[in-house]
């Protein structure tokens, strides 16, 4: 009998030959050392191929995909944080610089608080004590600020702060969009 073709040997190893062909191939393999070696080589090759070394992708791959897929959520969070920080900064700065602690609005709030029920009044008193402490600190800071920065300079400083915060906001908002636009260009 003629030697088995490579195709037959591979199919024999895979078990995809019909019953008669498979039996004939087995009989031939018992007698032919050349085909036996060939079949063993294909079996070995199959075993090696079946256990491939998988390449590990760089760790940055998934985070980069996630940031491309979910840019909006991340941006909205960061923009909200920037707006909140800007608001707190500006309000604090105006409050301290212009010393609104004695303003009628603040006084009215304190009077309203003292007119409420006793347990709430106790809570408010506690908060008020903390507020007084903070007020003393803010007054001192305000005095220092006014000493260091006369009114026009104060306005300039506030302007710079607003400009810087707006710039930060614009960068946070526009940069990823510009990047994506650039990436789409051929």
């Amino acid at each position: 009998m003629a030697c088995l073709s490579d195709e037959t040997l591979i199919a024999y190893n895979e078990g995809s030959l019909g019953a008669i062909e498979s039996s004939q191939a087995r009989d031939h393999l018992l007698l032919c050392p050349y085909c036996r070696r060939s079949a063993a080589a294909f079996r070995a090759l199959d075993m090696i191929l079946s256990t491939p070394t998988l390449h590990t992708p760089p760790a940055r791959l998934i985070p980069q995909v996630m940031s491309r897929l979910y840019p909006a959520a991340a941006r909205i969070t960061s923009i909200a944080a920037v707006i909140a920080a800007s608001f707190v900064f500006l309000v604090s700065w105006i409050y301290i610089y212009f010393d609104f602690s004695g303003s009628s609005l603040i006084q009215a709030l304190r009077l309203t608080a003292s007119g409420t029920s006793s347990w709430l009044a106790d809570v408010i008193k506690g908060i008020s004590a903390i507020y007084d402490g903070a007020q003393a600190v803010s007054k001192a800071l305000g005095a220092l600020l006014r000493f260091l920065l006369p009114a026009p300079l104060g306005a300039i400083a506030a302007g710079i702060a607003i400009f810087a915060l707006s710039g930060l906001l614009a960068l946070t908002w526009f940069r990823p969009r510009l990047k994506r636009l650039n990436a789409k260009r051929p």
Partner: protein
Amino acid sequence: MQLDEDQALIKKSLRGDRRAFEELMRKYEKRIFSFVVRMVRNEETAVDLTQDFFIKIFTVLDKYNYEYKFSTWAYRICYNLVIDHIRKNQAQVDSLDDESVSARDLIESDNVSREDGFKALSRDETRDYVWGVVDQIPLKFRELILLRYIQDLKYEEIAEITALPVGTVKNRIFKAKEILKKEMEQDGLLV
């Protein structure tokens, strides 16, 4: 309808669960990346293509048909993406396919025959050698070997992905194995 693990993750992803999609990516990233890197033979390009693949999957996730296996659907998208890239960069691929295979330096001078038909290389060396040869065979054989052994697909699934008849897939894989065996014999790696 009973959903498998992948399909459950898809459902969650479509409901906006970011972690579910991340989990799906983690499950497939190694096999996809290995397939892509062996197809394009350039790690940086493979990273870009793998990222593009996941983004593509995400954007068409709502078109996924739950009657089919997710992996087959995903591999088809991956295969098409890579083939498109290769076609656009055909010259580069052709020049790589022309490179002659040589791994004789892997062979030790005092080889001793082993029962599995390979000469005495360590298991890892043999695997590296064989996969090194796979990297060098022509694309039409390589892609099928990768789908069969990296993605662990059946002939029928490969036929579906590549849009080739099952008979052609089988013949090309047989042919690829013949080429690999021949290369190894030429390099003196087979007994």
